[in-house]
């Protein structure tokens, strides 16, 4: 009996100690004034946790400043943050919890497919959802071309990213024969590849082969061998950094010596850690760059506060989303979701972290955002060129 009791106590202690490591954190002032609750759907564990943590840090830093300056409409802001693990099912659970928490709007998720899943809960609840790096156009406009009235984004969309990538491949890399290599379980990957193919073939390039793998797969040598055999000068691989790093490593082992081009999801130091020397000279489209002069002061501030560089591009778009929500609360003088949504849809030249943001009312996409091409040089990410 004693043994069982001791085991029980140990298990309880372990659970409590683990719970205190993680869990949802809240920030913001307390006091007699009711805080304004803003939800944050973010991946704090799993493969996307690096960006999630950067979003969390950036938002906490920004909200601390806002609350120190008296908050919004005299009320402090409080973040309700839950981990969605960048997983569709978890995202729906988190959205349900945020609805129950009565938040006025949600920042995130950062992944298109995850945001689309969360919409099934947030839209009936009339909850504003502002995706951070949700570049798939279906996040704001569904398959039938119908607008999701409460969904917005603060980033560019995949057709634009695909266009930038394809033009870069055709003009800067002089590519004629390309292969696409995608994650079959990801809306982002499939969508971006299709936009790339459309522009690339229209520009005179040939897509020689289209290969795919399943999320969580680690060995791509069979597909890469086929790509090598097809004779290509470029592989377009719009996947996460983990797969891209491994694929480049395996490709070099097989003697596949062509350009690798990717999308914004590559922008994590893990790409270089996993791929090593094989990533040297690869290119990818990014949504924002650490070297953007507009962000210089903010990056410094972030580094001072958190002791490391922000993982781009998520944190800046999360902060942009926060600004849009605050502008809507101040502009409408309250938290009515319909009024706020209408206000955000018609935003004009709002000063945000990445510059000035306007919103297209019929697509809920921001205008005036630009993209950059980055590369890996001497084992570090380097700005290659800006595209606006």
């Amino acid at each position, binding site marked *: 009996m004693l043994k069982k009791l001791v085991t029980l106590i140990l298990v309880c202690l372990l659970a409590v100690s*683990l719970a205190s*490591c*993680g869990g949802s954190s809240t920030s913001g002032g307390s006091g007699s004034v009711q805080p304004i609750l803003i939800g944050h759907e973010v991946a*704090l*564990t*799993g*493969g996307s*946790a*690096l960006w999630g943590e950067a979003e969390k840090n950036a938002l906490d830093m920004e909200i601390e400043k806002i609350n120190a300056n008296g908050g919004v409409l005299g009320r402090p802001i409080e973040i309700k943050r839950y981990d969605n693990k960048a997983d569709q099912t978890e995202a729906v659970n988190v959205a349900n919890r945020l609805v129950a928490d009565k938040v006025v709007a949600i920042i995130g998720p950062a992944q298109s497919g995850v945001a689309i899943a969360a919409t099934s809960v947030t839209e009936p609840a009339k909850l504003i959802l502002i995706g951070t790096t949700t570049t798939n156009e279906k996040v704001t406009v569904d398959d039938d071309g119908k607008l999701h009235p409460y969904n917005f984004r603060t980033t560019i969309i995949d057709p634009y990213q695909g266009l930038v990538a394809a033009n870069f491949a055709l003009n800067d890399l002089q590519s004629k024969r390309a292969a696409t290599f995608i994650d*079959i379980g990801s809306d982002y990957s499939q969508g971006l590849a299709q936009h790339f193919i459309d522009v690339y073939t229209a520009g005179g390039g040939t897509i020689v082969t289209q*290969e*795919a*793998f*399943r999320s*969580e797969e*680690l*060995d791509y*040598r*069979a*597909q890469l*061998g*086929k790509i090598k*055999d097809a004779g290509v000068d470029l592989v377009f691989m719009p996947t996460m950094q*983990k797969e891209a*790093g*491994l694929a480049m*490593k395996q490709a*070099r*082992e*097989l*003697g596949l010596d062509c350009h690798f081009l990717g999308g914004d999801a590559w922008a994590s130091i*893990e790409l270089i*850690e*996993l791929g*090593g*020397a*094989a990533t040297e000279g690869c290119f990818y489209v990014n949504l924002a760059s650490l070297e953007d002069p507009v962000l210089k002061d903010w990056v410094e501030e972030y580094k001072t506060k958190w002791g490391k560089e922000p993982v781009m591009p998520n944190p800046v778009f999360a902060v942009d989303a926060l600004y849009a929500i605050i502008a809507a609360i101040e502009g409408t003088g309250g938290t009515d979701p319909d009024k706020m949504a209408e206000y955000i849809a018609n935003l004009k030249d709002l000063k945000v972290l990445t510059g000035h943001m306007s919103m297209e009312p019929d697509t809920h996409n921001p205008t005036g955002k630009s993209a950059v091409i980055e590369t890996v040089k001497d084992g570090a990410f380097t700005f290659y060129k800006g595209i606006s």
Partner: protein
Amino acid sequence: MFMQTLVTGVAVGGVYALMAVGYSLIFSILNFSNFAYGSIIMLASYVGYFSLTSYGMPFPLAVVVTMLGAAALSLLNERISYSSLRKRNAPSLYFMISAMGTSIFLENMVYATIGASFKAYPPLFTQATVKLGSSTIGKLDLFAIIFSFTAIFILNYYINHTRTGIAIRAASYDSTIAQINGVNLTYVIGLVFILAGLLAGLSGVFLGLKYMAYPTMGWITNKAYVSAVIGGLGSLPGAVVGGLILGVLESLVSVYISSTIRDVFSFSFLICILLFMPSGLFGKYLEEKV
């Protein structure tokens, strides 16, 4: 092209085989599928990573430390999660649920303590390749294949030609009768978990070197489990053959049919095997144990 596909398939299959043997070993004696095995491999991969980086051990020493560490974890897994169930003669379904719980616990423990980021091993076999006729194979792969098969061979010898090996085999046929004949079952089961743990350590290092260490890497053992089932759960040669068949089949399907339907194909293959040979290719017995 065909040769290269075959070589790649064998390289992938070799790792499946190594892990499948671990699954089969435990199944053969406890008659349940130890789904926590993937998590033990994952932890082993972290042990290997930290031995090489934080403690700066040379590679051979790191392999030994990882194997011993994984063996200890595997034994701990048995003593904490299964031994009390075993003493109460719980049905194997309970073992499986306990295994799943252990697996989820370990995965989340890594999230909460080490974190979710991917840990890349230091480059020990930097992209070096060996030419085999017209095809190439990575040095690491070659090394992994040789090492895996040597380990499996030694294990097979141990089980078939030593006294303890005979005890293990006896217990796998009928644990009650073996006990009546003086086999200490707790000892034998502990030993089996240690052996499976040693293999898990080896797999963990190879997986980490080849890919990386991260909390959900246990997922890859699903394929190893499928290999074990194709070969016949409980049969060691079956696990090896199953792993190789699956590895080669996957490579061939990716290249000659389509990489998008690779998993559809390999799992359909599994269903077909089970339809016609319900106990797998080398399955030993079909009848219920009474």
